Every structure is written in structure tokens, then in C-alpha cells.
């Protein structure tokens, strides 16, 4: 039997083909750049309970925690997956309205939370309805853009911008973080981020930079050796700034635990699996 095929992911302005031992651990959150209280989140989890039982549990927890009107349970009949949803308005949190849905996908559940300053039942119903495992040929619902979310796509209100940080974990404890924010993070940002995680006695050793090129992309790769307070062994990281011509596209942080050996070849194959998205 042949090796399982690599899987392609959208990470901002590039796609990346990752080996199947990587799991998408990105927090999928689409936010309004002008209003951080306007946000859509999607998450996939194992389903431990039947849908109706689970939605009742969620409602009991919410009612016990916050004050505000809790709407009844409803269904979007035209959705591709069995679903239940409700709304809740928090009088303690700026009267924000939470639109929440659970959808059963085989043995898993997709949770969709849409928070807005006012009820937006039709918008939310369109989001729930749009969740699909294939992009489909129909146009997105009015005022929406079709966005990837793990193996799915869904229609996201056009004002909401996609996440810029994509995180993938592998079975050996390594990880990859793609940061597609418009400005390249600096080495200081990197050190700060590690320091914030308990890097007491932090020692960052910047091993010489290497440049790589493939297709029409270019990467400047930095190597770091870091000692964290929580882990006496030296940790090895890779950081690559990927660009097209003079246009910065994405940074990639890569980490493999000491017992996983050298991460060099794996990191290179990740970089070479990146392709610039050609926009229509």
C-alpha cells in the first residue's frame, strides 16, 4: 500500500502540502477588523453525546453562568448535517448576541459561534447551511465569502477576515506555525513569544541564516537553539520568512522535540510544499 497523500491547506496567501501525520490545530476565528466583538468561530471536536443531549447541556451551562435571554432550540433544515442552534443575549457583556450551533458530522461535532451586536438569524442560518466538505459549485450566500476550515468550507460574512495564524501538530510533539500577518515577525518577537512561555534563562543562539529558493518563492531560514526554564535540554527551532519577489507572504516557525532528531529535512520539505496562491 502506498504512503498516504499529503494534504493541502490554505495559509493566508500560500497553500502548503503537509504530510498526513500533521493535524490541523488552527483556531478558526474570523474577525471584524473594525469591531472585535463581531466574530465567527468554528471548531471540530469528538462527539461524546447525542446532539440533543449535548445542546441541552450547553444551555444549562450558559444559563447558570451568565444573565440574559436564552432563545429556544431550532434547526436549519436545509443544512447538509443534522444540527441544532440557539441564541443567547448577554446583558453583562455589552448585550452581545451569541448565535450557537452544533452540527453532527459522523462521530464528530462542528460547533459554530457567531457573535454580533444584534440578532442576525438569517446570516447565521446561511452560515450553518453552508458548512460542507466540498467547495461546491454554487456561489456563496449573499454578503459572504466561502472560506476553508479544516476539511470543510463555509460561507463567512464578507466583513470578517480569516485567521492569520495556522498551527499544525504532529504525533511526535512537533509543531508548525504559519503566520500570515501582513508584517514579518522579527527575531525579537520570536524571543518574546518564547520568553512569555517561561523562558527563564532564555538563551537564543542564532545559527547562520540559510537561503532557499523553489518555484517562484524564496525563504530566509534562521536556526535557533533555545533553553527554556521548563525543559533543561536545548530546543531546536526553525524560522523561515517566505516571500515572492519583495513581497513577504508568510513566516513559518517549526519545532521538533529533542528526541525527534534533526528537523532540518522535515522543515525543508514543508517549505518546498508551499505554493503561492494565484488569485483570479
Amino acid at each position, binding site marked *: 500500500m502506498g504512503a498516504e497523500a499529503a494534504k493541502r491547506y490554505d495559509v493566508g496567501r500560500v497553500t502548503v502540502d503537509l504530510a498526513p501525520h500533521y493535524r490541523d490545530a488552527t*483556531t478558526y476565528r474570523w474577525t471584524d477588523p473594525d469591531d*472585535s466583538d463581531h466574530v465567527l468561530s468554528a471548531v471540530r471536536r469528538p462527539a461524546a453525546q447525542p446532539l440533543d443531549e449535548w445542546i441541552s447541556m450547553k444551555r444549562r451551562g450558559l444559563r447558570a453562568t451568565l444573565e440574559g435571554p436564552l432563545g429556544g432550540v431550532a434547526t436549519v433544515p436545509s443544512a447538509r448535517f443534522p444540527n441544532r442552534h440557539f441564541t*443567547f443575549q448577554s446583558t453583562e*457583556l455589552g448585550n452581545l448576541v451569541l448565535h450557537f450551533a452544533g452540527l453532527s458530522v459522523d462521530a464528530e461535532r462542528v460547533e459554530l459561534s457567531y457573535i454580533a451586536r444584534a440578532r442576525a438569524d438569517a446570516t447565521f442560518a446561511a452560515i450553518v447551511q453552508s458548512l460542507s466538505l466540498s467547495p461546491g459549485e454554487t456561489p456563496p450566500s449573499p454578503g459572504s465569502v466561502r472560506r476553508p476550515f479544516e476539511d470543510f468550507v463555509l460561507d463567512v460574512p464578507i466583513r470578517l477576515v480569516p485567521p492569520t495564524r495556522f498551527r499544525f501538530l504532529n504525533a511526535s510533539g512537533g509543531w508548525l506555525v504559519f503566520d500570515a500577518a501582513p508584517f514579518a515577525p522579527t527575531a525579537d518577537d520570536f524571543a518574546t513569544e518564547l520568553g512569555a512561555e517561561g523562558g527563564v534563562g532564555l538563551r537564543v543562539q542564532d545559527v547562520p541564516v540559510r537561503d532557499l529558493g523553489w518555484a517562484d518563492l524564496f525563504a530566509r531560514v534562521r536556526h535557533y537553539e533555545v533553553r527554556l526554564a521548563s525543559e533543561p535540554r536545548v530546543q531546536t527551532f526553525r524560522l523561515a520568512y517566505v516571500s515572492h519577489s519583495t513581497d513577504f507572504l508568510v513566516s513559518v516557525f517549526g519545532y521538533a522535540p529533542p528526541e525527534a532528531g534533526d528537523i532540518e529535512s522535515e522543515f525543508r520539505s514543508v517549505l518546498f510544499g508551499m505554493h503561492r496562491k494565484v488569485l483570479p
Partner: protein
Amino acid sequence: MSASAQVLPTNSTSKDTLNTKIVPVVVVPGVMGTRVSMVGTGSPDWDPDNNAQMLQWANTDSIAKQRFLDPTSADGKGTVMQEFSDLARGALRSSDLATVAARDRPSVVPPKVTGRSNAAAIADAEFLRFYKERGWPGATWKFYGDLLLRLEKNLNSAKGRSGGTLLNPVYASGYDWRKGNIENGARLSTEIDRILARHPNAKQVLVVTHSMGGLVTRASLAGSESKILGVIHCVIPTDGAAVAYRRFHSGATLPFDAPQNEDPPILEAVAARVLNKIMGPDPVSYALVQSVLRGPVELLPSNDYRTVFVETTNFGTNLDMGDVYRIYALDGPPGILPKIGASNVEGFSWNANDAAALRARIAGAKTLQATLGRRYHPNTVVLFGDDLRTDTNFNWNAGIVDKVDGIEDLKLKITQDGIDPNPDSPGKFLRGDGTVPAVSARVPSAPAGSPRVGISGAEHSVCFAKKEFMDQVELFARKLLGF
């Protein structure tokens, strides 16, 4: 205001301070007061400045919360936020701090000069970067914004201090409050080194703490005492807070956590109450979440809190009241562990793994207190809130005295005031800031002569919203800095 001693400690080094001496000021937030960016799959950020994120937390079930809030789990990985909240960004832009910052960094141009242009956008970015480098984005603006703005402006604009380099640049040192205070104390030591390295002419910093930030700072003293000019502790639960015990038996919920002193409601206080409710509205939910939280469990009353704060005659006479942590570790009242199999409002059950985790947290709390001992900075100032109803002691002998949502087996009588055994204040009713009783926050074990000032009506989470409280912070900061 109740002032027990408004003099500076005799060993203050500030009397020799020249007004050209650079002494950075470091603000250390309290529990839950640092914004933490969560990178676990699907976890909301811990961002009290962002209502939408906190609404997401409220809609996160107890088991998922337990996973996300465990700083040692893969799903609980988090970092102190490096970007400003919308709230902070807006407040900074409407402040006049650009004028202060421009003295230190010429590339920060006050917006009135630049107007609306590309140059203005660049100047704005420089301005925000200036305070980002000071760690300000990590502190929840709702709770610390006013403090940061006021200290930065007033300490650096005073007569003789308003030209050239800022003499008292104000930093915020946020930390992952889910971790233990000893670990965060070590982190603060590193942070102080980093701050001093940025100011080569500075030898010491002044630290202003809020709530649990005081314990973090005390834990940092082993490595940093000589680098600290003095510490102003605001509402520090130095010997713990009884509310941390009570919530294991009531949850963080009404009527126990009823608002006080809020007519009209203080929005920041409402926000603080929401944070507590997210921790768990019923005993089992609360215990499930607390079982993974190091710092918060370390706020349980210590053996120094009072001789007896839990009256337990009904449970027999064999309880070792000499070590309150042994009481906490009991399954069921008066311990803080729910009985195995007890379930919460969502239907999740408390199990043996949860119990082991919470016992480890209790052991951590005991270790913290043993480590801190009675160590305080020699130049310690204590500011505390007073005259608000505050959980102080508990009597398990009183039978059923309260029902909450039909929970009839709640046998805990919560006594929110009582007689203060302190001989200095005979007959005075125990009071506090609504969260931390004055018996703990007035820091009985602080060095002799340490100024202690109680501010009437200052509520724990929003003490800096109280003008009289803020006035005292600035007053003592000026004294310690040698104004």
C-alpha cells in the same frame, strides 16, 4: 480612609534619589488580569477587554475549560498578548501620552502635529509600538488602563522631570496567571532584568502590584530584591482570601457574589464578576476548573490567615486545625474537593483524576506559603480596600441557612463579617474590599513601620477606579521615587 501609619520606612533609599535617576515603574496585574493569547485548538483567548471572547468562555463547557485553562496541556498553551485590545488602542489614542512618549523617542510624533496623513499613520504605529515595548498590551485595560496612563503621565511630567528622557517609564509585566506564583515570580525577576537592561542608567525599579501580583512579586524577591526600590501592594491577599474557599462550596454565583457599592453599576466590576462566573457557577464546575489552575488555588487562606476561619465542630474533633491545607484536601465539606461522582449543572462528574489534580494544587499552595514565609521588601507600602462586605470566616455548624437554586444540602453558613481579633482595632467589624478581607490585605506580617492605608469603598477588582485609591498609589510612588 483608615491610615495606620503614613510614613515611609526608615530604610528607604529614596531620600538620596537625584531627580536625574531613572527608576522604571513596573505594574504587576492580579489574577485573571493578564490577557493571554490561547493557541489551543478552538480555545477562546483569555481577554477580559474583549466581550466576545469572554462570551465564548461562558459558552465553553467545564471539561473543555479544564483542558484549555491547563497551562501544561497542549490545548492550554498560551502566551501573554503582545497586541493592544481595541479598548486600549482607543484609550491611548485619545490620551495625551504621545507628548510624553515623544520626549523619549523622537519618532513618536503627537497626532496634533501630524494630522490625518500617511505620516500620521506611521506616527500612530510608532506611538503604539512605544507602549507595546513596555508590555502594556498584556494588562487588561479595563482594570489597569487608568493606572498605567496616570502613572506614566504624572510621574514623568512633574516639575523637574518633564524634559528629555523619561525618568520613570511605566511598564506592565503581565504573566500567565494560570501558572504558579513561584514560577511567575521567577519570570518577573527575568523581566526586571530585561527592563533594567533597556535603561543602562537605571539600577532599580519600583513595583506596583494588584491582588495576586503581590504574591508574584514577593516570590520574585529571592532573585530581585536588590533591584527593587520598593513595592506598593494594592489589595494583596497576602494570607489568602476566604472567598477562594467559599466558592468551592457555593460556586461563583449569586447571591454570594452579589454586587456591592455599585449604583450605578461599574462596568469594569461587572466584567470582573463575569470572569469569576466563568470559573464555575456551581461547586463541581468551579472545582473542575480550579483543579488545573495553579495561581488561583494558591489564593486559599493560608495557615497565617486566622487562627480559625472554618468552624467545623460538626465534623468531629479529629480535624487537624493546625494545618488548614489538610482540611482543604478532604473529600467533601469542610474540604474543597467534591465527593467522587458528584456532578455539575452540565452533568459532568468529578472523578479521581480531578481529585488528584486539585490535591496537587493544594500542595502547591502550601509550598508557595512556605517559600514566601514572611519575606517582604524592606520598602513595602500596603494599600487595601475597606468597608465592603467580604467573605471572612465560615461556620459549618449552623445547618442549612441558604438555598441556591434549590441546592438544599448547602450547609455552609457564610459569615461575611465578624469580630476582628486584631488588638489594634478592638471591636472593629472585619471588612475588606468585597473579595479580600482586610485581615489579609493589610498584611499583618509586613515589616514594622510599613505604611498601611485602607480606602473605604475601594472594591477589589476595580480599586484603581476609585480616585482616593489611585491618589494613594501616586502619593507613595512619588515618595519612594524621591519626588
